[in-house]
């Protein structure tokens, strides 16, 4: 059972974020796109946090967040978007879907670990 799910179509980002978090004691699972992220969220009730890209094939990160909220409600898993996007309209859409935070790439590992500790403990 993982604590954190990293959803990104880029292998380099998945590897880097998962590496930072694992080395800080978190258990991490990864998914290649929003569709796989949604499936893994459905099947893992122990997830505390999802860190997701926005622009991905098959299903984008914001659609995944909206589906998770509509299916699981707001009290379950936290979601942070880690993306190149900073369009205010996208952020508004994220907020409406219950996204808790937004990090614009390129990122630094300390910011991610800090955010995760704040949300997951």
């Amino acid at each position, binding site marked *: 059972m993982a604590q954190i799910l990293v959803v990104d179509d*880029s*292998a*380099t*980002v998945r590897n880097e974020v998962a590496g930072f978090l694992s080395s800080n004691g978190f258990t991490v699972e990864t998914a290649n796109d929003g569709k796989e992220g949604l499936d893994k969220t459905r099947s893992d009730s122990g997830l505390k946090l999802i860190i997701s890209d926005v622009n991905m094939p098959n299903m984008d990160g914001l659609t995944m967040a909206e589906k998770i909220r509509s299916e699981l409600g707001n009290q379950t898993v936290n979601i942070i978007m880690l993306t190149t996007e*900073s*369009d205010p309209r996208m952020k508004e859409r994220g907020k409406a879907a219950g996204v808790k*935070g937004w*990090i614009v790439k*390129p*990122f630094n590992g300390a910011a991610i670990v800090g955010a995760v500790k704040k949300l997951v403990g």
Partner: protein
Amino acid sequence: MTTESDIKSKVIILDDNTLAEEAISNFCEVNSVIGLKAKTASLFDILDGNTDLGGIIMSSTVASNEMQGEELVKAIHYKRPELPIFYRCEKSSLEESPLSETFKRLIAGEFCMENLDKLKADIDSHLFTTYYPMALIRGMQEVSLEAIRSNIRDCEIEVDSPYLVKDRLIFGELMSLIPMESTWYRGYMMIQTTESEIIQAIENGLTPLDINDTDFRFVNSVLNEITNLIWGGIKNRFANYDDDSTDEQAPKTQVPISVNHHHKYISFGTEEPQLCFHYKVKPKKEGLPSIELYQKFIFNLSWYPDNFLNCDSVTEELVESGELEFF
């Protein structure tokens, strides 16, 4: 890191008259043109191998591959029709027998040493046809350098002056391509590199990947992430979110992009020069090979740089990358 930001263009100089060749080189230096003196014997090898040329300045008397004058121009034009040819003639011969209209269609323009203003006018009208604001150029470079550094670590990066290219050859084996779109530009960005250079960077722990992830799919992912970060960085920095003058739902035009793998050739359907940046990524650790990255922008669908000036003033308000913004 070393950077320059004046826009230039690389042009082959092919001339059998040493004095004229020297004078043209000097002309190039003061007119933002990088003049590359070529040996006539290797002209066609240069044309085959160079991926970033703007054009050719050649004299009517120079010979290559046993061809000269009109015959040589035809051969060059046949091989690389996208490259403008600036053709030097002796003033007296031009006056005695002007170039035929058929021949003039093969060249960008003719000039003589007594009138280099004509050469300048021809170069301007064929190479420096598009206005790129310097603040935009600098911003593109900064965003790109940040993206490269976050994916290839412990390196020094050298950046050539940005330059304009007319040729359409693809460098290396690996190429990423992404649409670039805002309210004031629409086109594409390409990044080209060599697979073995990225593999060695992975093997030497310079990328976020595991050192054993050297399969070509992982190699692609390094280039893809650099491309993605640049795409996002440029969009965030230069997008004008306040501009509601365009209808996002309106149908948008597209043109086919054609790629010829055999000739390593890509066409975006436009005659406009491509804006090119060349990055040489040099690992700090001695003995490791450098990575060459060629980045090209082709704004083939729309380009309104005046609108860039409107959005440049709001960029300071954007949130810094890497920072977490809690909702």
